[in-house]
């Protein structure tokens, strides 16, 4: 058993020292993934600490961080912990009124938003020296986490260094995951669960941490596969979306055989969902804890008890009160709410913390019976207080009484109506005054005149839920329903939507068309070509467009990167191909010194003259230690999106295979969509491969350059690597377009220009970026 963590500061220092050359953090931003090794992280933390000290932010001062997960977030967060600066982390969706209240209560010395974090790197670049260390005591406050309040005052949970250290120690002893893991943390660092399990826990076991900047299920799944993620930290809502997406497909081929562990918590985990993954031999580790208990009360190990939230954690005392409420005691339990003695006293009874949840203990395993708080936690981790919604509903004349609860992860309202009215209208009315995360998503009518209640008059919500759930389940929203909803919400037509309705009749103009496509792409997680929808398109046509042969099946292929394949490639190129070409062609290279200036990897942009372009550029790149990857048209080379008989399909498959085998080609283009093209390119670049691209998208017939297609602009803006212009002359005569076998004799030249750094593209649109690159190539 590893030693206990003595302090979070020690944890951080050990982690940084033990992983000097190891990548410790990874972050997906757009199409690229950025990473940082221990040594660099340590340097940046030191610089940030000095920066904060220079701004007169010292131990005991408070700062607010309101940003999404990133490497910069971790740098700032760990800097504060090491300097004893109190962090107040807030969710990015915190609304402005709540933010104001918290600012007034906390009086922070600084507020850091996402933009400020990004600027921090630049601002601390030139700082030198070592930060001063002040002694940090166990009872010193580490952070104050606000649990979203109702319309009343927000409650700031004060957590000391001792709390977090004790909580972490309990967590690592209860759930020992000593194996080396790559963990994807999908939860915001403003939540205690994410901090403890997605950061400190991973630091203790030297896991490699990953962050991603999207909640799009499709992208999460390919990220897990491409980066070979072993484990993921998430809430049941996200887990459900992933399951829905992969339900009828192979988990193994979509997530990879290395994906083994799911760490889940935060809200109720449906047993069917837990069983789905366990039956596929993926461990589901469910834990239970509150912000007030530093995120740990109980936790399952790799082989846990389905349906239970785990064994009582080490060094945490748990007992069940007479009314079934779970009470907790331990060093991990917080000292109290910030500046709120009254509320603090309400949650403690004889030094035991009242969790507000009901449960029972069987064989040292904890089972949750009901969330006493009745708080609904949405799939994105936001708290919804049913009381607020019930208040709105109960004020309406048609409603006698209402009960809002969580049903199948939705905000569900159960209504007792005074008279016979259309409940849909009432719900719509109510939703108008509710915040977006509070809106009622589904409802049912209570058949009796009152709800089941306790002696004190509180509605027994779990009973209500049981009774409405035992009714025949409402069909989950079908694909057609989803489509109708999106059309209805975007076009806002009063007309009824049926398959034959023309979208233009339903009120679609060019602006609404873009809005519609945008919403459809989000809802169905696909890409839709705007030109496919015109004034004649019907709802039926739209359905077909969305259902088009799932190009979603196309994944990034790693076999061309396999060492054996690489060897085959080298043999083919060096022993067969180049010697053959040398008989006919002498290529003179100039500007090769520019290759030493370009950082690896880079994107090489050239005019296109013949099929020999790639091999001849390849040659000089390989000499200078660049690893090339060639984007090849997804339709013309790989046959994706093509129709034809079996022979044509086989021919295309062979052609694609050969391109991948002999030149490390990968699909890129309209038929797999812009998004995928960029994803694949980003993935290659992440793996240090350099791209060779010909933006003319055709070979010249007369030696003159054709205008560049805009794809190169997209790449320049999104890939964050240098662009190196290349000019080829003479090859169009040696191997004219159309010829593939025997070249003419002749000489050719390849001129390499100086690299254009990514900063030059930051302020441009992709059109001007394309024009700039075209100019540079022409000028060579």
């Amino acid at each position, binding site marked *: 058993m590893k030693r206990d963590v003595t302090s979070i500061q020690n944890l951080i220092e050990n982690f940084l020292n033990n992983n000097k050359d190891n990548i410790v953090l990874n972050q997906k931003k757009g199409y690229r993934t950025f990473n940082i090794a221990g040594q660099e992280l340590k340097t940046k933390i030191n610089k940030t600490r000095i920066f904060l000290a220079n701004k007169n932010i010292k131990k005991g001062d408070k700062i607010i961080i309101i940003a999404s997960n990133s490497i910069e977030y971790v740098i700032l967060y760990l800097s504060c912990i090491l300097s004893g600066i109190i962090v107040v982390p807030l969710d990015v969706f915190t609304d402005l009124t709540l933010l104001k209240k918290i600012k007034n209560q906390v009086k922070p010395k600084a507020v850091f938003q996402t933009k400020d974090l990004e600027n921090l790197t630049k601002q601390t670049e030139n700082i030198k020296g070592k930060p001063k260390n002040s002694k940090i005591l166990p009872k010193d406050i580490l952070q104050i986490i606000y649990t979203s309040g109702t319309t009343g005052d927000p409650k700031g949970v004060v957590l000391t260094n001792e709390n977090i250290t004790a909580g972490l120690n309990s967590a690592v002893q209860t759930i020992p995951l000593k194996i080396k893991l790559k963990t994807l943390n999908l939860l915001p660092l403003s939540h205690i669960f994410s901090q403890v399990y997605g950061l400190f826990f991973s630091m203790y076991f030297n896991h490699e941490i990953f962050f991603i900047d999207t909640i799009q299920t499709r992208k999460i799944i390919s990220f897990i596969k491409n980066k070979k993620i072993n484990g993921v930290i998430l809430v049941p809502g996200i887990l459900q979306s992933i399951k829905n997406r992969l339900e009828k497909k192979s988990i193994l081929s979509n997530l990879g055989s290395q994906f083994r562990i799911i760490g889940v918590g935060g809200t109720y985990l449906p047993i069917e969902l837990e069983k789905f993954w366990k039956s596929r031999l993926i461990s589901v580790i469910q834990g239970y804890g509150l912000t007030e208990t530093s995120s740990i009360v109980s936790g399952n190990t790799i082989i846990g008890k389905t349906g239970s939230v785990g064994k009582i954690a080490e060094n945490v005392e748990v007992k069940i009160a007479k009314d079934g409420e779970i009470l907790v005691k331990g060093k991990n339990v917080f000292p109290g709410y910030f500046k709120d003695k009254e509320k603090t006293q309400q949650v403690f009874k004889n030094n035991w913390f009242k969790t507000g949840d009901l449960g029972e203990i069987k064989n040292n395993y904890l089972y949750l019976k009901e969330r006493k708080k009745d708080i609904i936690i949405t799939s994105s981790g936001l708290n919804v207080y049913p009381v607020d919604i019930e208040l709105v509903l109960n004020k309406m004349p048609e409603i006698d009484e209402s009960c809002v609860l969580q049903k199948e992860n939705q905000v569900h309202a159960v209504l007792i109506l005074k008279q016979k009215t259309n409940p849909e209208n009432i719900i719509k009315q109510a939703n108008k005054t509710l915040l977006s995360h509070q809106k009622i998503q589904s409802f049912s009518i209570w058949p009796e005149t009152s709800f089941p209640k306790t002696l004190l008059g509180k509605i027994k919500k779990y009973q209500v839920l049981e009774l409405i759930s035992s009714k025949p389940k409402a069909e989950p929203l079908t694909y057609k329903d989803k489509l109708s909803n999106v059309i209805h919400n975007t076009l806002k037509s009063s007309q009824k939507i049926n398959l034959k309705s023309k979208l233009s009749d339903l009120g679609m103009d060019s602006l609404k068309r873009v809005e519609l496509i945008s919403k459809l792409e989000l809802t169905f997680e696909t890409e839709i070509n705007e030109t496919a929808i015109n004034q004649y398109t019907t709802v039926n046509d739209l359905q077909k467009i969305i259902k088009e042969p799932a190009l979603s099946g196309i994944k990034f292929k790693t076999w061309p990167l396999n060492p054996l394949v690489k060897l085959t490639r080298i043999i083919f190129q060096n022993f067969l191909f180049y010697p053959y070409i040398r008989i006919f062609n002498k290529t003179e290279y100039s500007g090769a010194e520019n290759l030493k200036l370009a950082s690896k990897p880079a994107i090489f942009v050239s005019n296109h003259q013949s099929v020999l372009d790639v091999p001849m550029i390849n040659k000089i790149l390989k000499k200078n230690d660049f690893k090339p990857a060639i984007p090849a048209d997804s339709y013309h080379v790989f046959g994706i999106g093509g129709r034809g008989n079996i022979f044509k399909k086989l021919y295309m498959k062979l052609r694609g295979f050969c391109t991948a085998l002999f030149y490390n080609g990968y699909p890129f283009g309209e038929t797999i969509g812009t998004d995928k093209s960029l994803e694949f390119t980003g993935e290659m670049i992440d793996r240090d491969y350099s791209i060779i691209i010909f933006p003319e998208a055709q070979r010249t017939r007369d030696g003159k350059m054709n205008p560049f297609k805009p794809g190169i602009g997209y790449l320049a803006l999104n890939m964050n690597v240098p662009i190196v212009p290349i000019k080829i002359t003479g090859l169009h005569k040696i191997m004219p377009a159309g010829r593939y076998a025997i070249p003419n004799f002749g000489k050719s030249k390849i001129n390499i220009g100086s690299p254009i750094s990514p900063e030059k593209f930051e302020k441009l649109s992709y*059109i*001007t970026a394309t024009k700039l690159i075209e100019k540079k190539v022409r000028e060579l």
Partner: protein
Amino acid sequence: MKIKIGNDIVQIERIANLDEPTKKKIFHKTELNKSKPETLAGIFAAKEACKKVFNDLDWLDIEIKKKKNGKPVLILNDELIEFTNSDLSISHDGDYATAIVIFT
């Protein structure tokens, strides 16, 4: 001399109320930087006017830049345009923004 003309008028509010993903489909980040609603609406009208002339232009194939004196300038994906000259004028007042574009 061949001339082609396009024109559009749009309610400023409709553009201001668009959500982020939709805006990203229509406007380049260089255009979004000038984020006054009437300016953005004017840019939208200009793009729509161009699209009326050339049906297969996409929103992002068009970029509107402003010269130092405030005059808007049209930048297009070259290969789609057979016309070499273009001129553009944008205006707004109250609730509406309008634009007119000429190609020769």
